[in-house]
């Protein structure tokens, strides 16, 4: 018998018994902790732990040109790096499809919830601010989607907008806050042994057949992404959406506390 299949049997058996390896219920997050503004050279930053998963978000804001189809809006550019320090599974090199999916799902939630008012990033004709959101995965133990969204959202709440003085971009001193107008979080569920689990660990993700990320704010769902080869039923979808509002509220309270909102 292969090591992989021994682990798989163990994980599946535990879940069939209604338990998880770390003692959590199916609907519980691991401990979430947020360190706001750990980096001083960024415009905003946050260091987030969900269990052993650690994700850092760094925000830089640069003087830029607007997109030709949106001449009066600033830009948001989100990237994610699955750093080789984070797991023996991650290798150095250009972004993998997994890293690109991660960045795009985080980006979609933030954009759809209007966390950043892109109109407020307009300076003058042909000049806007571009907000670069970099998601750095430092240690991987599952659920990078929620950790990444929490890190990005928390970092945006600590972000200060640079000033333009003539041609010079001023990044230090007395600066205006970005003041996000909304707060989006995501809840990511997995399906293992026909059970729905919130906040999977790395070994759970290994044997999960389907994954669903739901990004929402207080009132509405803002973005969703199904991943992996398996499927969900419509009643499972309803169950996850209900739970995402309940759990999202808990997470938003943790973010508010950590960022002093």
């Amino acid at each position, binding site marked *: 018998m292969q090591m992989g299949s021994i682990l798989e049997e163990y994980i599946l058996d535990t879940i069939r018994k209604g338990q998880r390896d770390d003692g959590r219920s199916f609907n519980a997050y691991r401990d979430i902790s947020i360190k706001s503004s750990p980096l001083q050279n960024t415009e905003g930053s946050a260091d987030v732990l969900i269990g052993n998963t650690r994700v850092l978000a760094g925000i830089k804001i640069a003087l830029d040109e607007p997109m030709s189809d949106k001449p009066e809006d600033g830009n948001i550019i989100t990237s994610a790096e699955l750093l*080789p320090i984070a797991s*023996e599974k991650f290798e150095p090199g250009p972004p993998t499809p997994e890293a690109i999916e991660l960045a795009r799902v985080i980006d979609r939630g933030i954009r759809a919830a209007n966390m950043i008012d892109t109109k407020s990033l307009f300076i003058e004709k042909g000049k806007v601010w571009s907000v670069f959101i970099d998601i750095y995965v430092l240690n991987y133990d599952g659920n990078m989607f929620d950790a990444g969204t929490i890190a990005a959202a928390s970092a945006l709440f600590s972000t200060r907008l640079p000033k333009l003085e003539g041609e010079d971009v001023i*990044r230090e001193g007395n600066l205006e806050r970005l003041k996000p107008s909304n707060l989006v979080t995501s809840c990511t569920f997995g399906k293992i042994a026909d059970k729905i689990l919130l906040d999977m660990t790395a070994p759970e993700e290994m044997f999960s057949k389907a994954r669903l990320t739901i990004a929402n704010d207080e009132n509405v769902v803002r973005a969703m992404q199904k991943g992996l080869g398996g499927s969900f039923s419509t009643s499972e979808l309803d169950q996850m959406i209900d739970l995402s509002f309940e759990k999202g509220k808990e997470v938003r309270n943790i973010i508010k506390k950590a960022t002093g909102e």
Partner: protein
Amino acid sequence: MAEKPELIINGKRNDGRSSGDLRPIKIESNVIKNASGSAYIEWGKNKIIAAVYGPREALPKHTADPEKAVIKCRYSMAPFSSLEEHGRSGPNRRAIEISKVTKEVFENVVMLQDFPGSEINIYIEVLQSDGGTRAAGITAAAVAMASSGIPMTDLPYAVSAGKVGTEVILDLDKLEDNYSDADMPMAIAPIQNKILLLQMDGTLSREEIKRAVSMILKAGEAISKLQIAALKKPYEEISERYAKE
């Protein structure tokens, strides 16, 4: 570039240090759970994580050496690590050179012959930079390597010295580096008393190099102590916990 600021006034540098002073250094080991060994270093305003993975099978296979382990190193600066513009992600030419000289530092001290056919990966991620990141990165990587339990013949450290005007100074920060007349990072194996890395650009006389080297060696005693303390700390915490039970 803007006009050169006055970097040394009445013998004091812009952050209040004297010529031979290090910036404050904090080192913590075992910060990345998944890694074989890891360390976080704050060196002045620099914030850097180093992690070691391995020894593990060298892949792709043609990179393996049947006689000994190979070291692979990646030094990389986060796109948000500097105060200026958003950088590009992944290593640029400067970072590739730093990765190479860092790898060569560790080829001198890691007992590679114990692990034929395998690779040992050193990853250095600069999260915040303020001059001297290669030296801080090597110092952290040495702690990461030692904390992984991979046998080493020495515990290297690195620090740079340089020159501003006529004054030889230790541990240049970003501002000093930008306007310095010389910069000379060195990595040292303190037990064996060997130079493992030496780079220099600018102008230094023979006497100035001697002064720079002696400053580096003196500072190295303090850096080595911090490295050893960082390595011991997790074990001291465990033994304290047992002592209480």
